[in-house]
């Protein structure tokens, strides 16, 4: 650890390398919790973020699921929005210019009903100025076609990634679902098909019901669980995936504080996305960023990159044999 101490009083270098994409810091918004950026611009300067990941975009506008769409659960919330969005044309025309002018790197989350639709979306966004990367959503639990249907099958995931890869030269992120037996297997399939990064996790498929009305709380019956409640699951997934693939991993799931974010970096994530916490504190990402910087100073890290994946899993026995025999002799 000593090799990276801060030698001057300067700021620690928080920039991270995500395959072909370099970000000035590892904190970005998670898709679906940050709108198209504009919704939060009144609270802080978006340029402080590493990147903004926008609400999932489809070829045509989608109305989304019937209400109720959200329900709060202990330490978390469930949603079944159903990917309501303005569609790619209106995104490019009405939403992207604001983000482009704000100067923050933009990652567009894309979603299709078929493999071909993913490819079409990618080629539509390919030439757009202001786009930094695409995040392929193969993990939404709240839609009947596409989404998690692709993401739970390594071969289907690979087919989607290949279609997108063929349609664009933009850096690609594949966002994975935790609702699988082996997330590592799906991650390897995505990497093999040309994904430059993996992001995980999307929400956990979940359910909430009311015993008095005997009805499900969400109109969609099931929804995706997010928030602090899912963080341990997310951390395990990120740990496994970052060991299964060579490409960088973006950690997502219940991050609400600087420590949460650092935990993900420690187990191997090169960057993080903050989701549900944006709803509770609109300036939370800036606070996380400042916390990470503080941590880097306190720990004497000249660059954050050296902290990534530095989890120490070796077994230490503080009471070594010598010490034990010493105690033994004391007793006898």
């Amino acid at each position, binding site marked *: 650890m000593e090799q990276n101490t801060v030698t001057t009083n300067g700021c620690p270098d928080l920039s991270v390398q995500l395959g072909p994409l370099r970000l000035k810091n590892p904190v970005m918004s998670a898709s679906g919790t940050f709108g198209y950026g504009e919704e939060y611009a009144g609270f802080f300067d978006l340029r402080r973020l590493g990147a903004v990941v926008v609400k999932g975009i489809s070829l045509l506008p989608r109305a989304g699921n019937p209400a109720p769409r959200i329900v709060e659960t*202990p330490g978390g919330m469930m*949603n079944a929005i159903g990917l*309501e969005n303005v569609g790619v044309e209106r995104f490019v025309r009405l939403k992207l210019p604001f983000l482009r002018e704000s100067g923050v790197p933009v990652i567009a989350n894309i979603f299709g009903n078929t493999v071909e639709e993913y490819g079409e979306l990618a080629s539509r966004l390919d030439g757009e100025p202001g786009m930094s990367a695409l995040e392929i959503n193969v993990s939404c639990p709240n839609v009947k076609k596409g989404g998690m249907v692709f993401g739970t099958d390594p071969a289907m995931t690979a087919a989607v990634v290949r279609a997108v890869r063929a349609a664009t030269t933009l850096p690609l992120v594949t966002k994975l679902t935790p609702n699988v037996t082996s997330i590592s297997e799906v991650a390897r399939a995505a990497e093999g098909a040309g994904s430059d990064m993996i992001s995980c996790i999307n929400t956990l498929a979940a359910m909430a019901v009311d015993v*008095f*009305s005997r*009805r499900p709380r969400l109109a969609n019956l099931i929804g995706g669980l997010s928030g602090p409640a899912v963080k341990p699951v997310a951390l395990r997934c990120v740990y496994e995936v970052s060991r299964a693939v060579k490409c960088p991993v973006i950690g997502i799931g219940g991050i609400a504080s600087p420590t949460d974010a650092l935990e993900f970096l420690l187990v191997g994530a090169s960057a993080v996305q903050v989701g549900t916490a944006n709803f509770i504190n609109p300036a939370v990402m800036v606070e996380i960023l400042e916390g990470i910087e503080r941590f880097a100073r306190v720990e004497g890290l000249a660059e954050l990159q050296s902290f990534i994946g530095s989890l120490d899993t070796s077994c230490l026995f503080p009471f070594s044999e010598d010490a034990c025999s010493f105690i033994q002799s004391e007793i006898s």
Partner: protein
Amino acid sequence: MEKIIEEARIVSRQLVRGQIFRLRLHAPNISGAARPGQFVMLRVCEGIDPLLRRPFSFSRVDAAEGDFEILYRVVGRGTLLLSRLLPGASLSLVGPLGNGFELPLTSSSPLAFLAGGIGLAPLLELIARVISERGQKGAGELRLFYGARTAEELLPEDLLCLPGLRIDFATDDGTFGYKGRITHMFEEAVAEGFGPSEIYSCGPLAMQYNVAKWALANKTMAQLSLESLIAWGLGACLGCALPAATPEDPGAERFVHVCEDGPIFSAGSIKWNKILSQQTVVPTFPFN
């Protein structure tokens, strides 16, 4: 419209009646910007359960003092924790949010205000604002039709005391005032010659539906303050959706969002027949 994050101080907390509390908060920035019908998202505790902020409408705004008030009924964990906070404690707010009521178009025409239960809250500030804009003498005929399930859930009259306002009470069980629905009471008043040019309404969804139905049938402008579970309050989560009517294309599937497009909606803007029964589920907290 600029959105404000503000740490508010609790000025006073009063148990008004039954499970209904009145909370006065000192938050000069939000109080200065608040309009009737708008709301604030309030964080009731620092922990993660409950995780999300809670929406409350302004029941009174005192911009000069930098204070505002909310009225709430304890229905769940969030409101229970809120009811335990003492004066002097601080609370994190985001607001003012939502569109707010449009004030009446004319300066003296009769107005009807329909309040069901705690739905009275946003109407109090609205009525006060209408009276102060019109001036006490020329306020015109202002009538509040105010109902609750039972007499115990009606707010005491000193809270409702607004000059020039006539109040008719109703309870579902007949323990106070008219026995039955507020909308029925209102319809009887109309039959007796009351002719409001505009209606303002807030209450349970079933009541709002009946208000909307009457307003549409009688071609009267109605502004309804609707509610929904709201996670965030600024249009980013899209959770608080209600089915929207699209007059030019009745078959279109479209949603409005209570936090961003509302919470005030005209009677005709909601596709009432597409609202699911889950949307009207009453809180089950007393059992827990």
